[in-house]
């Protein structure tokens, strides 16, 4: 049972950027957790999550709950939902990305819980289980818009979690 959460890094964006990368993540924790609240000025309501900037050996399955329906899918990229310029003004998303044993020598699993907030009947919640089939320790994590930029005042927090 994890009993310690340590804030490794916190960032509030002062200006719009296309991506945010946390580099040189210390390997001294058991798990890591990102809590991010994002919004883009683009038109695609999702963003990519790339461990060590990887673009291959990634698989994921997801289920998405909409206002009155559900959908599911799978893909070879890790992605989460994000409000875009047409969504409710001044509203940011609400996402958690949990990565157990991120510094180990096994493949890395991801649990992603994402809500791209929007005051609309078809807004959605995304639950995603991902796997990066690579034995390299995760030392960086990149959050990348698909189009447009993450806007000012987005917040990103990285926590390290020890099992003792």
């Amino acid at each position, binding site marked *: 049972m994890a009993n310690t959460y340590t804030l*490794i*890094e916190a*960032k509030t*964006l002062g*200006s719009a*950027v*296309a*991506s*945010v*990368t*946390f*580099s*040189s*993540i*210390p390997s001294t924790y058991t798990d890591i957790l990102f809590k991010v609240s994002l919004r883009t000025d683009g038109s*695609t309501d*999702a963003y*990519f999550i790339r461990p060590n900037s990887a*673009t291959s050996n990634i698989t994921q399955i997801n289920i998405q709950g909409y206002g009155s*329906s559900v*959908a599911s*899918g799978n*893909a070879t*990229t890790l*992605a989460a939902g994000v409000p875009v310029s047409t969504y409710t003004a001044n509203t940011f998303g609400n996402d958690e990305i949990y990565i157990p044993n991120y510094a180990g020598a096994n493949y890395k699993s991801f649990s992603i819980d994402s809500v791209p907030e929007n005051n609309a009947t078809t807004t959605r919640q995304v639950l995603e289980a991902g796997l990066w089939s690579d034995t390299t320790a995760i030392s960086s994590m990149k959050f*990348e818009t*698909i*189009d447009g*930029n993450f806007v000012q005042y987005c917040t990103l927090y*990285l926590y390290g979690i020890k099992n003792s």
Partner: protein
Amino acid sequence: MPNPTKLIINCETGVQEEIELTDEEVAQREADAEAYAIRKAEEDAAAEAKAALKASAKAKLIAGQPLTAEEADVLVL
């Protein structure tokens, strides 16, 4: 017009750098966006087809008509 920028935060030193994307990185972003749009369109189409199948199955059940195997699948799988 300048390219978009990327922010890199070094968790060891706390140093933050904002760097303009290279033309190659911009091209890669555009390719990734195109691939994502294609996949999303496929997912949306599949969801719509499933919803239509469900609606058809429901209408047939109410009317006491036989279902197709596909319509039965969306109700029990």
